[in-house]
């Protein structure tokens, strides 16, 4: 035994060379090609096929990062996505990506990786002193330590904790890469490409199903690449390679590698993230960095394998302590030995495999510590085979080595402890089936006492678990189960049962054993000196779990939140079961009684960029452009957003120095001569059918039956609760044919409302609707000379005189150049005005035509701002007045409500409180001093009243400088408003702290008699 306590053997002859720990090619490595990458600025070599973890190990780098709270030196624990320790920053500048798992990061030529959460360097981390503050950072520290005084939290504690505890740094600049989204459909989705997954995909495809096989790794094969399993006298990985090749040749099979299925959702939907270009320096032109898939599958087979559990013992987190299965991955797949002298610590026969693989790779296996007493015959045989000392019923009582493992303290079954030198400790506490996807959607896992792990006993309909995910312990069992479920799933998805033919399955050469005897804590309560980590990523120790138990936070959901167990980016994949077992033990209950928390998507971290896809920057929402957009931009307009529409706000001239000057000019031109404005954005709904008038009667408050053909009418719609919903004009074009306009904002909502009224309330009505908003370009031509301009455009056979085509007229017309259109005599400005509609493709030409023929009249294009000023001058309510809180009475339209018919909102509009005269009602306001600006949102108070809520009598909804009145004007709502015309009130703007005196006036500032309108 003495030789075991000797120091490590000298390094082999490769000392000084690159990749000193690379012992062979490995089945997943292209050893003929060498690439270079950097870690903390140091240039290192690797081979294509390496992960960052395998490449670091090949170069003898064991210290990779510092832990979250205590800044403990950490290395590489696993060889897969469950990695809690080896988190690094990848790339630089705008592409810097923190918290990347080295175990799933493929190395490429030029990759720059940096350790994180250390200062100033990884080896000499000043913040390692956090370990001394351990009592402060124990379970529940957020809740206890920093409760008092409250002000200290923000100023003192939080900044300190933020600096000391943490992970990597996000990039400071916008992500320059592109992400996209795609949808795929299949009969059978297979997740995982180990023996079970490949067999399942092969069987499902053979049975005629359309198959998608997703593998999160870059290579298929799963554990067949990590283990030295022989299938029919060939390496298991070679069978995987052949099967993949066979599947790729099938037309209805799609194999997606580097694609992690991260979530299971309703209706057979799965979310998956394809890492399209994470493994190259820069995506190719036109290639996204990552692609977010929605996969819609009839049936799904989860062949996700398992995740190995660490063992909880003091100082179990040093670099060099690694899961036994991960050790085999590095040895077999990557051709890398993670150490030169190893100790194996296991509670099951599977862990022993690491001894054989290491031994055959030339690593000295000093000892096998088998917690089982007596140990299995397999353990005894293995110890003999590799020449290792066997400690049956032994335990690891502690470890040494500050930035890397140097020795372990082995306690034998007699209680005697000795020191064994080693730089690698391969640990196996047994395996958990990876059932995360099966438990999404609130399927609760159950504890299986035989397997000593949580399983899903009754998966959701259409979901099947195969291989180790279903508890299959051998490769043969996984192959057989995958094969059978593949066929079953194909049939479940509708394939003809006769199609499926049994396929020949390979057989594993060796007998694989498990024989686990659970070991949840190596030393029990007595041995809790030193930090025994359960959750490596969040630095949660066995002590923290004990503390939570003592303090009453023993329910699993409390345990999780009190200790932060399982709440890191790894979701506690290697931690949760050990913690639950620990809690069960503390409470003297079974693990089944203790229960487990449910997990949610994503099973692996997913970049926000991928979830956003192309919806970022100006593509966050679509833009809608009115038909005159190009012309308006040529004309020098300033654009504004109106919902998703981009509209001309005003058209400045070079000599104008402010937008106000421009808008004043536009308004004056309309009121004195003629102007035009694109009003295409108003919703337009074509309504046809014998019962069209009946439908209009029921959705509008006013009467519609008697509207003659060739006329339009203003209509107001309420919601069923009696408040105003939308307004607009509807024209009758023929006996059973109407065209309705809605406000721009409510175009979609009104359409949905009409369909609801028809289909859900009155399906017997013979009426149909279609949105024609995009079909017609509609331009308002307004001003006293508008008729003169239209005479130049409309075919001369059409009589435009006031007598023949009066206010509210509507007609199909033909333009002089033959284009068919529609003409409405509508006015939003209060002037003589028309709206002319032509098929949308002629909108641009119509704008140019108006400019040409209108030139002699000084025609002026105007934007939304002048439009708004003129509608305020005329007192037309718009969005700020129809704000969802105002009634027809409030808007001064109470008398429009028909008493002769039922309509949407009638019953509720009659409620006493909604008819109260004290309700704020539409009024106009003019400041006593014309230049006193009135601001929308200001409160209306009686003159001299204190500016408090009790005195508040209303508000301003819209305001503008009126070049026509030459004063500020406003529309607003005032209690008893219509009875107070002439009264001077106070307008209080609490934001600016100003009070302005203004006179209450009728809400029409221009042409109250309507003589211009009817000219």
């Amino acid at each position, binding site marked *: 035994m003495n030789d075991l306590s000797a120091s490590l053997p000298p390094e082999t002859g490769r000392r000084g060379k690159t990749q000193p720990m690379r012992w062979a090619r490995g089945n997943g490595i292209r050893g003929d090609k060498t690439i270079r990458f950097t870690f903390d600025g140091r240039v290192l070599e690797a081979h294509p096929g390496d992960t960052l973890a395998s490449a670091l190990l090949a170069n003898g780098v064991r210290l990779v990062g510092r832990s979250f709270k205590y800044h403990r030196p950490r290395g590489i624990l696993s060889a897969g996505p469950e990695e809690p320790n080896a988190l690094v920053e990848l790339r630089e500048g705008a592409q810097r990506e923190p918290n990347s798992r080295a175990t799933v990061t493929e190395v490429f030529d030029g990759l720059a990786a940096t350790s994180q959460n250390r200062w100033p360097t990884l080896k000499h981390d000043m913040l390692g002193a956090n370990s001394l503050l351990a009592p402060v950072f124990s379970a529940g520290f957020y809740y206890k330590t920093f409760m008092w005084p409250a002000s200290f939290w923000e100023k003192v504690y939080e900044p300190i904790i933020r600096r000391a505890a943490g992970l990597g740094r996000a990039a400071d600049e916008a992500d320059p890469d592109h992400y996209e989204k795609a949808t795929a459909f299949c009969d059978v989705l297979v997740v995982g490409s180990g023996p079970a997954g490949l067999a399942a995909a092969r069987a499902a495809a053979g049975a005629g199903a359309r198959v998608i096989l997703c593998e999160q790794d870059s290579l298929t094969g799963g554990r067949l690449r990590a283990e030295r399993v022989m299938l029919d006298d060939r390496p298991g990985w070679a069978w995987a390679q052949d099967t993949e090749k066979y599947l790729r040749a099938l037309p209805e099979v799609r194999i997606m590698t580097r694609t992690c299925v991260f979530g299971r959702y309703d*209706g057979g*939907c799965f979310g998956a993230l394809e890492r399209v270009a994470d493994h190259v320096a820069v995506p190719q032109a036109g290639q996204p960095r990552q692609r977010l898939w929605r996969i819609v599958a009839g049936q799904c087979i989860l062949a996700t394998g398992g995740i190995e559990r660490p063992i909880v013992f003091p100082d179990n987190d040093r670099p060099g302590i690694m899961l036994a299965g991960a050790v085999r991955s590095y040895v077999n797949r990557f051709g890398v030995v993670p150490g030169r002298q190893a100790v194996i610590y296991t509670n099951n026969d599977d862990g022993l495999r690491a001894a054989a693989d290491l031994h055959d790779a030339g690593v000295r296996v000093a000892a096998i510590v088998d917690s089982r007493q007596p140990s299995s015959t397999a353990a005894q045989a293995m110890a003999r085979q590799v020449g290792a000392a066997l400690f049956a019923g032994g335990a690891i009582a502690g470890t040494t080595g500050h930035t890397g493992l140097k020795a372990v303290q082995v306690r034998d079954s007699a209680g005697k402890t000795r020191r064994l030198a080693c730089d690698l400790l391969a640990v196996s506490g047994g395996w958990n089936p990876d059932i995360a996807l099966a438990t999404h959607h609130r399927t609760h896992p159950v504890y299986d006492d035989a397997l000593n792990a949580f399983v899903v006993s009754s998966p959701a309909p259409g979901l099947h678990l195969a291989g180790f995910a279903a508890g299959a312990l051998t490769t043969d069992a996984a192959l057989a189960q995958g094969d059978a479920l593949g066929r079953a799933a194909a049939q479940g998805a509708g394939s003809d049962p006769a199609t499926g033919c049994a396929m020949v399955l390979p057989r594993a050469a060796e007998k694989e054993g498990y024989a686990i005897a659970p070991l949840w804590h190596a030393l029990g309560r007595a041995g809790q000196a030193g930090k025994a980590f359960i959750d490596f990523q969040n630095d949660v120790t066995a002590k923290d779990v004990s503390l939570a138990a003592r303090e009453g936070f023993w329910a699993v959901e409390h345990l999780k939140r009190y200790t932060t167990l399982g709440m890191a980016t790894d979701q506690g994949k290697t931690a949760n079961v050990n913690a639950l077992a620990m809690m069960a033990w503390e409470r003297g209950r079974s693990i089944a009684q203790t229960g487990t928390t449910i997990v949610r998507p994503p099973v692996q971290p997913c970049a926000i960029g991928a979830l956003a896809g192309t919806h970022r920057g100006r593509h966050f929402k679509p833009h809608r452009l009115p038909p005159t957009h190009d012309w308006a931009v040529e004309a020098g307009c300033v654009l504004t957003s109106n919902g998703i529409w981009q509209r001309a706000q005003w058209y400045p001239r070079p000599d104008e120095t402010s937008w106000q000057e421009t808008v004043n000019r536009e308004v004056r031109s309309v009121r004195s001569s003629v102007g035009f404005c694109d009003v295409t954005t108003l919703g337009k709904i074509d309504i046809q059918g014998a019962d069209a008038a009946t439908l209009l009667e029921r959705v509008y408050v006013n009467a519609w039956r008697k509207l003659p053909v060739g006329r339009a009418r203003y209509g107001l719609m309420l919601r069923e609760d009696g408040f105003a919903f939308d307004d607009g004009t509807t024209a009758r074009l023929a006996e059973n044919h109407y065209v309705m306009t809605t406000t721009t904002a409510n175009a979609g909502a009104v359409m949905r409302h009409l369909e609801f009224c028809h289909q859900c309330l009155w399906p017997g009505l013979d009426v149909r609707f279609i949105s024609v908003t995009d079909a017609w370009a509609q331009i308002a031509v307004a001003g006293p000379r508008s008729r003169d301009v239209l005479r130049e455009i409309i075919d001369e056979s059409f009589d435009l005189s006031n007598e023949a085509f009066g206010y509210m007229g509507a007609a199909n017309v033909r333009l002089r150049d033959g284009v068919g259109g529609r003409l409405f005599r509508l006015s939003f400005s209060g002037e003589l005005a028309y709206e002319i509609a032509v098929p949308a493709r002629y909108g641009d030409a119509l704008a140019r035509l108006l400019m040409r023929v209108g030139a002699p009249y000084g025609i002026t294009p105007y934007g939304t701002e002048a439009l708004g000023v003129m509608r305020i001058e005329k007192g037309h309510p718009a969005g700020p007045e129809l704000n969802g809180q105002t009634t027809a009475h409030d808007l001064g339209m109470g008398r429009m409500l028909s008493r002769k018919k039922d309509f949407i909102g*009638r019953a509720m509009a009659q409620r006493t409180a909604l008819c109260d005269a004290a309700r704020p009602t539409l009024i106009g306001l003019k400041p006593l001093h014309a230049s006193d600006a009135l601001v929308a949102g200001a409160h209306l108070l009686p003159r001299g009243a204190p500016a408090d809520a009790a005195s508040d009598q209303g508000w301003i909804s819209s305001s503008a400088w009126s070049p026509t009145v030459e004063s500020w004007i406003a529309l607003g709502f005032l209690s008893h408003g219509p009875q107070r015309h002439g009264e001077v009130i106070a307008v209080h703007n609490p934001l600016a702290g100003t009070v302005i005196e203004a006179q209450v006036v009728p809400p029409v500032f221009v042409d109250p008699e309507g003589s211009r309108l009817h000219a």
Partner: protein
Amino acid sequence: MRIHCPYCCTRGVEEFTYRGDATVRRPDLDAPEAAWVDYVYLRDNPAGPHAEYWYHAAGCHSWLVVRRDTRTHEIFSVQTASEVSEA
């Protein structure tokens, strides 16, 4: 969630707009105010099977009555609202 529209086949939920309880019936105009308050404001929120209105906004513009379990999102049946209203 995916909804089987009788006109458009099975489509993703993002094509649909939710409205809510499809079991309420619009009262007559002269019904007591309490009946109207019920209709406009009060909704049951069952954990389990429920009938709901969904609108196929990005499809055929049909209003549908979808019967589904609010706990599991399992859909039992989909009918057009006009078919249900006329029955």
